[in-house]
């Protein structure tokens, strides 16, 4: 009789322990997360506890390209090579949709948990990306907080946008522009700008000839080339004399790519910057 009671007690204890463990399963967070992609790096840095981060990609440590370079520098950098990744013995790997396919495939074959995050094409997708990563990191509450903060800011900014939308074109290296239904397109809309390129029948390659840029009677020209110190023909196109000549006829300013490349609060910064630059009275136009 005493034997059976002991066994039942132990059994119950085990059961309780198991349930407790299971119940806390989603409280177990990955402790060695490696991120291979600049955008996943950013979310990792924002959402995770520093102790969870094993490595971020080297791109995030470059202040010209990334939003959190100082924070990124606190962690070891990787170059996206499979061997490197394995050396960190990660329990979670975050990759972008364009991270080297062979590397990702290799990692998956080793049984590693790999989460691939796509490039968001809208604010809704941005929120989803944040939620996905937050859940993977076991930081759902931080994720929700971040989203809430972004939404609040967006509401405030929306109030500042008055009057009809201003006509705008984004010019990127090699004459690329931004088309319909992209994240930047939505950012422009929320800043009260009408993306002229979305209306033109720009082909799939999204290249707009300089002639068309000039003749479109646009009011705002956004130069989206990062001020690289090293020259290239692609970025040189943004400094064509005709663009400089246009500066007298319309508002022309530089927009750093890092603000609107990745899913994160920086897209709200982008909206804010656009509103400031385009709605400020001409006399107060900041030098671009």
């Amino acid at each position, binding site marked *: 009789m005493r034997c059976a009671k002991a066994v039942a007690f132990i059994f119950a204890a085990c059961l309780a322990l198991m349930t407790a463990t299971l119940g806390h399963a989603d409280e177990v967070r990955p402790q060695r997360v490696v991120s291979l992609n600049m955008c996943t790096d950013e979310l990792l840095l924002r959402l995770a506890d520093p102790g969870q981060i094993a490595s971020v990609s080297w791109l995030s440590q470059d202040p010209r390209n990334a939003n959190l370079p100082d924070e990124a520098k606190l962690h070891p950098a990787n170059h996206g090579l499979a061997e490197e990744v394995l050396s960190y013995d990660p329990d979670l790997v975050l990759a972008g949709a364009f991270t080297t396919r062979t590397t990702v495939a290799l990692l998956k074959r080793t049984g590693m948990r790999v989460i691939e995050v796509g490039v968001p094409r809208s604010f809704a997708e941005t929120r989803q990306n944040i939620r996905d990563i937050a859940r993977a990191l076991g930081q759902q509450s931080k994720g929700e907080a971040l989203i809430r903060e972004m939404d609040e800011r967006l509401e405030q900014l929306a109030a500042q946008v008055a009057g009809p939308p201003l006509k705008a074109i984004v010019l990127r290296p090699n004459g690329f522009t931004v088309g319909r239904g992209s994240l930047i397109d939505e950012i422009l809309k929320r800043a009260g700008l009408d993306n002229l390129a979305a209306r033109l029948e720009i082909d799939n*390659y999204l290249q707009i000839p300089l*002639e068309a840029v000039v003749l479109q*009677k646009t009011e705002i020209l956004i130069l989206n080339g990062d001020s690289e110190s090293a*020259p290239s023909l692609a970025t040189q196109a943004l400094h064509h*004399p*005709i663009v400089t000549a246009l500066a007298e006829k319309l508002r022309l300013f530089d927009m750093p790519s890092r603000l609107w490349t990745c899913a994160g609060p920086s897209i709200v910064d982008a909206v804010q910057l656009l509103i400031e630059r385009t709605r400020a009275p001409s006399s107060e136009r900041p030098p671009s």
Partner: protein
Amino acid sequence: MSADAIRAATGRSGSLPLLFGLSLLSVLMALASLVIGYARLDIVAAASDALRGTHSLPALVLLELRVPRAALGFVAGFSLGITGAAMQGLLRNPLAEPGIVGVSGGAALGAVLVFYSGLAGAFLLALPLGGIAGAILATVLLFAVAGRGAGTTTLILAGIAINSFAGALTTLALNLSPNPYAAFEIIFWLMGSLADRSLPQLWLVLPLMAIGWALLVSTAPALDGLTLGEDTAASLGFDLQKLRLKVIGGAALAVGSAVAVTGTIGFVGLVVPHLLRPYVGNRPGRLLLVSGFGGASLLLGADIVVRLLPIHPELKLGVVTALIGAPFLFSLVYRHRSER
């Protein structure tokens, strides 16, 4: 009309009408190039605005985009044509042209090194000078390897060697550039383009090219004399060493600066002199200027084709000239073979 018959029929001053006609053609092509573009432009309104000094949008497009494109197409084509004719005259070989023998490849290397290192940003003239330096190096190498009076085989082999080497170094330089776009820009340097060129680029290269053209034109009598071989040419009073230097210098200035702003565009210097040679009675001296205007016309024509073709991204100029020139080369090789 067979080539022989054309030659026989060409009179003593038969090349003057040809010269006039080709220069007129090249001017017309330039005007056509102004009218054709990516967006509809009221040329007349734009031109009158521009002349009045009004900086309306159409005037801006005309002055800052279309004029540089047409003008650079003209001067680059002129440079390629006249240099091809001069090199063929000097080397006494119809296959010599700046692309084949490696001069353009060397120029591209020089320009790439100067541009991507940031030197050109600091000192504007550095870009064409880089192209010129590269062209000189390539030519010196060519003469060193192929020697004087080298046969076709040696010449072509030397050209292959120089082009391979220069091409490899150019790609390496592009890969080493910190700018992420650089590595993909090899296609511009290898195939050439006139898109989005600017007026400052035109002013930068024009004086240098003009000096190059002057040097090349001054070699006309000596090239004629060289028809009879080096000894006879010397006995006719020509300094052969000076002639070589003038052709090297002129070629480097003209082609080197052209390549620096347009990239390498091949075959113009091969096709144009070859087509026009029978019409100047095969005389190398007379071929120079007509090849210049012929080259300008050809390049402008190719640039018009490139803009009219509904292909995106826009074809590089070198593709069109290669599509015309490579079959030419085939026929030259075939003829060369049957002459053995």
